[in-house]
């Protein structure tokens, strides 16, 4: 066995042992609770699916809308720039919980829509504001020389944006974008106020029903932590994949 694979093995073993210890520790802490309320534990964990759906869908739509807003921020037309900047200001300058309430009670108030859609709409609009700022910085950092080279060949502005500027901006903005997804996972917990049965909502129900706080909150905390951790690990992986230094 060579040195490198040996080191790799030791590293893997360390991680596995640490994981086993953590699991054992938590098992010890949560064992009694689980024996008494196995369904509650399962329900809390399953509720994470709403958290996941809301965060991923909002990040996706937020990225689309945020990119469009970012492009408008450098538009030649002043009105578009003003609107784009005002949008960002508005959504960054007010609390998420207020935005969610307005969208639920006022915008969708008269309609009988799925609560998930309300939550996703609200968080997409919110994250678009943050993502537009991230993308704007990314777009500004793309080397002007490359844009000029494309212009000099007669490439259309729109093609320059989609083929040169946006792909490079996305790569440069990947770390802050992953960070935004992690933020969404955590912040989406406020959807419990409109009654979406996400992680926080179900946890709240369990604490109310059992009068136990520590165990349900600990389980919810672990779920959030694991979700955020998976996000950052995926982010690292994609970042390495996208790096141009590797030959394709």
């Amino acid at each position, binding site marked *: 066995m060579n040195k490198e694979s040996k080191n790799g093995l030791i590293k893997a073993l360390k991680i596995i042992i640490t994981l086993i210890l953590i699991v054992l520790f938590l098992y010890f802490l949560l064992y009694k609770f689980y024996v008494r309320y196995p369904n509650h534990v399962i329900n809390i964990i399953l509720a994470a699916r709403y958290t996941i759906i809301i965060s991923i869908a909002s990040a996706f739509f937020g990225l689309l809308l945020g990119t469009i807003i970012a492009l408008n921020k450098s538009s030649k037309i002043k009105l578009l720039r003003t609107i784009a900047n005002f949008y960002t200001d508005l959504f960054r300058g007010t609390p998420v919980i207020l935005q969610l309430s307005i969208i639920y009670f006022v915008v969708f108030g008269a309609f009988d829509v799925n609560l998930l859609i309300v939550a996703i709409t609200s968080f997409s609009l919110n994250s678009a504001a943050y993502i537009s700022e991230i993308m704007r910085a990314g777009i500004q950092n793309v*080397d002007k*020389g*490359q844009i*000029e*080279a*494309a*212009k*000099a*060949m*007669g*490439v*259309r502005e729109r*093609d320059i944006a989609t*083929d*040169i500027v946006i*792909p*490079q901006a996305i*790569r440069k903005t990947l770390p802050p974008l992953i960070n935004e997804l992690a933020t969404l996972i955590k912040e989406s917990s406020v959807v419990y106020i409109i009654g979406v049965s996400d992680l926080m909502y179900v946890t709240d129900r369990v604490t109310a029903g059992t009068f136990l706080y520590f165990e349900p909150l600990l389980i919810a905390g672990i779920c959030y932590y694991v979700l955020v951790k998976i996000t950052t690990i995926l982010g690292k992986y994609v970042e390495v994949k996208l790096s*141009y*230094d*590797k*030959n*394709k």
Partner: protein
Amino acid sequence: MIKINNLSKSFSHSKVLHDINLTIDTGETISIIGPSGSGKSTLLRCMNLLEIPDEGSINIDDVEITDPNTDMRLIRENIGMVFQQFNLFENKNVLENVIYGLLKVKKMEKVEAEEIGKNLLIRVGLGEKINSMPQNLSGGQKQRVAIARALAMEPSILLFDEPTSALDPEMVKEVLDVMKDLDHKGYTIIVVTHEMGFAKNVSDHIVFMVEGKIAEYATPEEFFSSPKTERAREFLDKMLNK
């Protein structure tokens, strides 16, 4: 033929080009030389409308490109440009860089474009590098890719803005060799350069600029053996004795 008439250009309050008149015949190779800040790049960039002149006109083969109604993209298609900083697309590999214009501007089929791209890369000595990313190339290799990218569009005019100034000395030759190879191939070539050897041996005419004006326009023989102006003599002294 490129005909430049009474061309002027200012940036904010400083006038960078003063009333430039210049005629360049089809198939000629021209070297623009002169001290830093004399407006060489600006003049070159006016020719493909990367800078829009304030006054005067530029005609290319009877088309007035400075007419606000002309389609800039059509004009640029016919003019290749090579930059000092290479400006390769960092998110595309070497072959993708070369064929990008063929796909997006000329709307060519990918297979056909790749065939052309590969042949051009072989011609500039980079047949082995078609799948490399620009980040993994040396400066000289990058500049040769940039030249192949410009040639792919089959332009009739080629503009070079100090193509070797960002290169390590040992890589200058490989790029100049590729450029020399383009001489007498029908292209009209305009090079802003500090390479006096290239200007002397390859170009048909020298344009010597000082403070936004053409101070001298001459054949290389005339210019290098008996410059007419004091400024040109000083400039040549500095360039040749460094």
